């Protein structure tokens, strides 16, 4: 029961705390307007290059942009606490770590999914990309799984924020790599072989592929495999992130370095 309370209340409080500074003045330009501009930028470059249709860029970039809320909010999980000098108090508490950290991840997943879905809708309307009505529930599932998967990577990001100071820089680097490697803007077949190998094991690659198939009219059953792989990737990253968090927490306690960064 205590774990459930920590999971739900802790996660909610942490997310509300995020909004003490993530006001609409910051939220709207960063997470509502910016993804639409990224879609437009890539779509127009794509038209100029003659590589793929607008639909390709709308779907790819809308899903890939979920990386911003997922990576940065998870980084704030540690960075924000550190900034407010509450990290020490949290880490000395006897609260079980699993609900403590994963409870904070749930609102992040939902927010990431919202940003992605909103971008997809607005991008489709602006560039006149038709999304089949029947595909909308499946697309929603794919977007949710994509956000979950990236939040797993965000947990690793959060763990690294325990050790490094410039965690925002690291989040930017992750975002940049996802922009190139996930196939959001470049068809995976056109990437060098080693890059394709990397693409297979990072968030978004499979969900973007699944979403494109759905928009092209494929049935849900045709993308179940891709969604499953994305789920597994997300789970692996989440477990790795959790273990890394525990490891750096122990290291921080042992060497008294929690507040050094």
């Amino acid at each position, binding site marked *: 029961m205590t774990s459930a309370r920590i999971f739900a209340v802790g996660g909610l409080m942490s997310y509300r705390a995020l909004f003490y500074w993530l006001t609409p003045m910051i939220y709207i330009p960063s997470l509502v307007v910016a993804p639409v501009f990224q879609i437009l930028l890539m779509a127009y470059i794509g038209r100029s290059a003659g590589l793929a249709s607008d639909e390709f860029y709308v779907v790819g970039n809308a899903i890939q942009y979920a990386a911003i809320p997922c990576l940065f909010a998870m980084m704030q999980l540690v960075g924000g606490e550190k900034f407010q000098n509450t990290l020490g108090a949290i880490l000395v508490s006897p609260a079980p770590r699993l609900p403590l950290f994963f409870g904070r991840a749930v609102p992040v997943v939902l927010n990431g999914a919202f940003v992605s879905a909103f971008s997809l809708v607005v991008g489709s309307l602006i560039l006149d990309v038709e999304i089949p009505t029947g595909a909308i529930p499946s697309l929603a599932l794919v977007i949710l799984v994509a956000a979950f998967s990236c939040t797993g990577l965000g947990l690793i990001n959060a763990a690294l924020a325990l050790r490094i100071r410039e965690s925002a820089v690291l989040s930017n680097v992750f975002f940049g790599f996802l922009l*190139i490697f996930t196939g959001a803007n470049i068809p995976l077949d056109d990437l060098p072989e080693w890059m394709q190998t990397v693409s297979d094991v990072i968030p978004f690659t499979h969900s973007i592929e699944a979403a494109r198939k759905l928009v092209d009219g494929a049935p849900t059953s045709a993308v179940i495999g891709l969604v499953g792989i994305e789920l597994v990737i997300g789970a692996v990253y989440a477990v790795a992130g959790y273990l890394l968090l525990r490891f750096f927490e122990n290291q921080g306690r042992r060497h008294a370095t929690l507040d050094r960064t």
Partner: protein
Amino acid sequence: MKTLRLLWMGWLFQFKQLSRSAFDSFLAVLWPLFFGTVAFFMFQQGGDPEALVYAGLGAAVMGIWTATSMAAGTALHRERWLGTLELLVATPPISHWSSSPSASPRRRSASTAWRRRSSGAGWSSGSTCRSISRC
């Protein structure tokens, strides 16, 4: 002469300050490379070498634009966070001259406000609200 010296010292100080931050220096170099790489692959497959040059140049120009606009836009904000804004405006010379030449490398991307706010540099435990500052 005094003004020129102020301008030079201000520029030098701002440049040194920003170049110490990975957010302001490392990312300023890295982000045009990310965009350039994406554009490279896109145009490479399109098979138009002229367009490839155009895309490469575009990524570089985007880097310049973002670096300067972001650095200039946050010059005073940074002083506020560091708690030096009061000293700056209280000095006898025209204070904005000392912070105006801050066009050093910095990247402005999709959600700079988020990143700027998330960046730990410069406002860790000591960055509390000052009297003149609005936090």
